[in-house]
């Protein structure tokens, strides 16, 4: 039964201040309405309980997209069309732009707003998984001022939000920190437009030295709210991507969701789709890994001297580089890594010394004179954790380096990736106790590890 418009009131304040003042004076009386793509449907069906509505669709304060150094701020009143057409959003937050393009049809996208999608709090809303994986924060405004909340803590239960009755969402902030991530998003529904999703997923991760880092997977339509797959994410963290991990992740994801049977789908089907989407995401991630072996194919085809020169910064020993270039072609990353270890162990002490001489002292940014630019850049990456050490540790490291050089006549070599300054200091003090024979083997082992890490980075381009 359609509602009678005579029983409703709607007012249009001229600006945001006037809107929040109305809400503050009678917080339980007013319901904000923006594009009306949800509330006007309730109105038509005779189920819109609120009788007094505040139109916020034309508040200029809510209709801006601003790019700051650290984040992009999307006004809560921006429509899906505003979002899907915005260049920075398309480039940096493609999954949100994509979700906007799936919402309703063009006419709905011209009216429906991101803020409205959030407060409507449907577990099936297409934009919400993207907001979850991008770590969106909301700016809430009232006459009391503004506060920021993480979207992930804002939507607390089925249609439940931590939004006070006198508050409006002013903006949605997305941190600009996902450069280099692989993203994957997919809506599974009867059709993309005008159909509510059976399952919708947004996922992000980056690959570093062949391992998965910071995997972020969110799903809609499988629980009372959009959810992150925290167990699956934990399982994937820092693991090399291989088929057995993909299978395990897919099973973990299925166990982690609580879908229901409803008019659009069944719990069983939704569960199966979740497993398949996680698999597809990880296969896409793996595809980018395989694509990167393009770098290997190119190197396989280079003339001998160029191939030597290119691989040299991974180790620093010319004999090693010559041997690696001579062993081409390599079929994959693993065979390159295995050949490197074999070659390294077959070399003499003089060759090892040559490699050691390419490294700067730990705790010093100054590159060794013989280091290539690439090797120097890698050194500073490898030492980034150590560089964060406090002054006391840095001074102790400098003293330790000096003692080591007086004792062994060369630079102290350690595979510094992931090690803090104080860890390195402890290892350095321990190794000062070694005899010459043990210590050169230890240094060679450290160089072997450094070469492995550098080769993986090099192969990934």
């Amino acid at each position, binding site marked *: 039964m359609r509602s009678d*418009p005579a*029983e*409703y009131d709607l007012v249009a304040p001229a600006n945001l201040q006037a809107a929040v003042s109305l809400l503050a004076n009678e917080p339980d009386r007013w319901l904000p309405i923006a594009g009306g793509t949800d509330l006007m*449907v309730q109105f038509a069906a005779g189920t819109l309980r609120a009788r007094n509505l505040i139109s916020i669709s034309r508040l200029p304060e809510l209709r801006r997209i601003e790019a700051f150094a650290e984040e992009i701020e999307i006004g809560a009143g921006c429509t899906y069309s505003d979002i899907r057409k915005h260049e920075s959003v398309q480039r940096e937050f493609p999954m949100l732009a994509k979700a906007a393009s799936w919402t309703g049809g063009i*006419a709905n996208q011209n009216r429906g707003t991101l803020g409205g999608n959030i407060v409507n709090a449907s577990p099936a809303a297409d934009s919400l998984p993207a907001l979850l994986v991008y770590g969106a924060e909301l700016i809430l405004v009232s006459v009391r001022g503004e506060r920021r909340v993480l979207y992930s803590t804002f939507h607390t239960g089925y249609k439940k939000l931590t939004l006070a009755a006198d508050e409006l969402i002013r903006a949605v902030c997305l941190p600009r920190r996902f450069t280099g991530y692989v993203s994957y998003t997919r809506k599974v529904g009867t059709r993309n437009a005008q159909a509510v999703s059976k399952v919708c997923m947004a996922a992000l991760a980056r690959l570093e030295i062949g391992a998965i880092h910071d995997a972020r997977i969110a799903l809609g339509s499988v629980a009372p709210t959009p959810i992150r797959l925290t167990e699956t994410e934990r399982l994937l963290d820092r693991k090399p991507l291989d088929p057995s991990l993909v299978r395990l992740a897919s099973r973990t994801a299925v166990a982690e969701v609580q879908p229901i049977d409803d008019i659009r789908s069944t719990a069983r089907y939704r569960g199966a789709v979740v497993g398949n989407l996680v698999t597809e995401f990880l296969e896409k991630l793996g595809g980018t890994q395989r694509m990167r072996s393009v770098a290997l194919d190119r190197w396989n085809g280079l003339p001998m001297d160029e191939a030597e020169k290119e691989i040299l910064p991974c180790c620093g020993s010319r004999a090693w580089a010559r041997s690696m270039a001579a062993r081409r072609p390599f079929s994959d990353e693993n065979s390159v890594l295995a050949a490197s270890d074999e070659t390294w162990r077959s070399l003499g002490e003089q060759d090892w010394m040559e490699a050691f001489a390419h490294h700067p002292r730990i705790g010093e940014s100054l590159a060794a004179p013989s280091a290539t630019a690439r090797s120097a850049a890698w050194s500073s990456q490898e030492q980034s954790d150590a560089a964060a050490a406090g002054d006391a540790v840095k001074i102790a490291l400098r003293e330790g380096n000096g003692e080591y050089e007086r004792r062994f006549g060369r630079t102290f070599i350690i595979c510094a990736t992931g090690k803090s300054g104080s860890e390195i200091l402890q290892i350095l003090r321990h190794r000062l106790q070694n005899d010459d024979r043990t210590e050169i083997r230890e240094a060679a082992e450290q160089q072997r590890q450094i070469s492995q890490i550098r080769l993986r980075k090099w192969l990934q381009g």
Partner: protein
Amino acid sequence: MTKTGAQCQISLTVNGEPRTVRAYPMERLLDVLRQQLGLTGTKEGCGEGECGACSVMMDGALVDSCLVPILQAQGAKVVTIEGLDQDSRARALQQSFLEYGGAQCGICTPGMILAAVHLLREKPEPGMDDIRQGLAGNLCRCTGYVQIFEAVAAAARRGVGR
């Protein structure tokens, strides 16, 4: 039931003409167009933003007029199917809908034409995917869509988008 709101005066431009109506602020733009202004080319299908039969342009954007409370159209420029009779894109689309069998019962046709005009304004040379997406919010229960997509593609080929 108690009466909550009072009628208000709304001024808007419809098909280029300034119009003023008295209406309750939550009255739907669709009803004002059809009942007060006699513009019955805009159809009501589902009444919930799913079918696109009530499509109109509001300030240049395609919208479903069943989801627009009239207060939100205060000061807006609204164009309905009647307002497109001199529009070169709409006329070319009308011709190609005839040629390709893009209209049968006719209920969806005004909305389809509005959505197609909106598409060709934004993308003068749309591919088939663009056409499918541009018309995805407009449902047709007669044609099976293919004739409609072909009609829009033909109109675009003739250069009406430019």
